[in-house]
């Protein structure tokens, strides 16, 4: 005998407006059916009617936890289509900003994940405090807190401000200490380990068949990270190493993300040290009409949540068609398979460990 319960669209831990139809037999989840589309606003249609740079805010609002990553992916697609080179300094500055954004995103995930497990907001508060510090540093580069709109074709709107390097190094040292603190706090807690270990198991073959991406895929033992397999920007030069584990459960996903924060800290540090001189400024928003070099361009980027693919069919002034393959969409589509047969409490641990953002699922 199973009971059908309706979780969401407004529920404390569905990370936005996700609706789950769950069949429960006792404490066991028989089946989960995610219903999405409650945030669908037709981004892909809207961007077909705007000039290239007018689309920047739309792209940033796809994933509102890591807006800068999407802006960068979109700008790269346009650069690819119009045949614009990125300046040498801008390459490094973008790497720094992308990795800072990744740290901020993973910190938010950490806080929310702990909350999903029933932590009474403690890790949430700590992680948000540190995320705020990262955001404040990024605010210096553009003047905006969340939606920077600072990417320009061929570079950025502003170069890094004076003294940014020192403040960034200071913050990174602080963050390193904090990450250690979180790991100590959580991993020495046997209840936390018990909640995460062996939950939401996903082995290598199933992970590939279900098409999950990003940290979830890497936690299942698949060595695929766009930053190392199709290197872009300064990742190759800085010796980026993907974080791969083979556990495949929630604890492994947690581990991969925590290690990614540490790897990001290292990359930012080395990128700051190797920052070339020169200008990082890109073209102004109202650039002259360009000849389209590539009608169809495909750009792949490693977002905090996984692999994003921008499929751009270009017109001279505006996109003819822009498809966004969003990582959360891929991960959420696997939820019903991963969560089948788990306990009710584990459902939320699994959902938390997938790290979804509904804005980019629904688009």
């Amino acid at each position, binding site marked *: 005998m199973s*009971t059908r*319960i*309706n979780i969401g669209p407004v*529920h*404390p*831990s569905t990370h936005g407006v996700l609706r789950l139809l769950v069949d*429960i037999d*006792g*404490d066991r989840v028989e089946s989960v059916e995610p219903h999405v589309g409650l945030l669908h606003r037709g981004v892909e249609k809207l961007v077909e009617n705007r000039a290239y740079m007018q689309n920047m805010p739309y792209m940033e609002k796809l994933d509102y936890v890591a807006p800068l990553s999407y802006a960068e992916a979109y700008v790269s697609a346009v650069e690819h289509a119009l045949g614009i080179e990125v300046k040498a300094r801008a390459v490094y500055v973008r790497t720094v900003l992308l990795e800072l954004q990744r740290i901020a995103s993973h910190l938010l995930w950490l806080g929310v994940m*702990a*909350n*999903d*497990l*029933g*932590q*009474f*907001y*403690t890790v949430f*508060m*700590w992680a948000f*405090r540190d995320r705020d510090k990262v955001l404040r540093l990024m605010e210096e580069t553009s003047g905006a807190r969340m939606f920077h709109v600072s990417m320009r074709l061929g570079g950025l709107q502003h170069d890094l401000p004076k003294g940014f390097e020192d403040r960034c190094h200071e913050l990174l040292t602080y963050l390193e200490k904090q990450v250690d603190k979180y790991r100590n*706090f*959580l991993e020495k*807690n046997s*209840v*936390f380990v*018990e*909640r995460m270990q062996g939950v939401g198991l996903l082995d290598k073959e199933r992970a590939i068949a279900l098409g999950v991406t990003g940290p979830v895929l890497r936690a299942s033992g698949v060595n695929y990270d766009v930053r190392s397999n199709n290197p872009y920007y300064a990742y190759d030069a800085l010796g980026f190493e993907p974080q791969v584990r083979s556990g495949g459960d929630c604890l492994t996903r947690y581990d991969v993300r925590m290690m990614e924060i540490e790897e990001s800290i290292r990359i930012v540090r080395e990128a700051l040290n190797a920052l070339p001189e020169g200008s990082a400024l890109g073209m102004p928003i109202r650039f002259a009409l360009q000849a389209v070099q590539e009608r169809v361009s495909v750009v792949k980027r490693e977002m905090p949540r996984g692999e994003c693919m921008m499929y751009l069919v270009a017109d001279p002034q505006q996109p003819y068609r822009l498809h966004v393959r969003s990582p959360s969409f891929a991960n959420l589509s696997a939820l019903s398979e991963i969560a089948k047969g788990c*306990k*009710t*409490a*584990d*459902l*939320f641990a699994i959902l938390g460990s997938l790290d979804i953002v509904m804005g980019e699922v629904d688009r």
Partner: protein
Amino acid sequence: MGFGYSFAGAMLLNGVVGEVFDTVAYAMMVLALVIAYDYLLSWVERKVVARIQGRYGPEQVGKYGILQNLADFIKLISKEHSLPKNADKALFLLGIPIMLAIALFLIFILPFSPSLSSSDMSMGMLFVFVVLSFMPLIVFVNGFASGNKFAAISAQRSVVMLVSYELPLLVVLATVCAAAGSYSISGIVNAQANSWFMMLMPIGFAVFFVAMLSELGRSPFDMSESDSELIAGWLTDVSAPYYTLVLFLDYTRTFLGSLLIAILFLGGWQGQFLPPIVWLLLKSFAVSVLMIMVRATSVRMRMEGLIRFGWLWLLPLSLLNLIISYLLFIR
């Protein structure tokens, strides 16, 4: 009835009328004490949790935010009341007041000092624990009566929890009573004149504390109220005025649990220099603060995790405690 100070005597009443008057006066005193304790505890909880989380907590309403909870309280009772359409009205409305009444009654029959007590039953401790184990059952009934599926799941959970912690709790209780050679509360306290039971049986204390946390439904055993899974569990459809009762009940239960731990393991009202009741309240307050700190730092357990923990750790440990205590000092 041994009050030390008889209100009826002062007013020259005697016979049955005097007895009743004395009881009512004592009940009023206890109620006032519980309200004061609960209020202070709720304020301390918000402050302590906030400090652990790197915040300040309430500080704008009243000095150090001391009036914050008063504002919350008045606001909640002045809000609109509503009943879910498919709730069993009588059960749904009666459950929470009954639980509150039970908690208050148990505090009422616990003695606060040798002179300040309503009764000293020879089976006092047994009585307390029998009545205390009604609470999850009332949560169960209330959850089912609210006609909400989340509340129904929460109701099932409360009963499953009862299965996993009640046994170790009672085994430790039996050990303590055997060591004290008495089931009466004052007997247990008097047995700790030389050394507290916490020193004699540290394992028993740890087991009892953990089992008490789940008896009270406090984190990490707040599965029946888990806000990240079941919205608010059995409280999902409870309207705002009733929610004041729930908050009151929550802190009253914490007070009750802390009192029991203080009486059973921390030597009750025994102490130097200060009056006995002050010692008892200080000790139970310390236990309450410890519970708050556990709440702020722990992660909620799973249901089957609790059952496994209860049967594979708590129960063997409580039996071990029983054996060691038997060999060392009960015999």
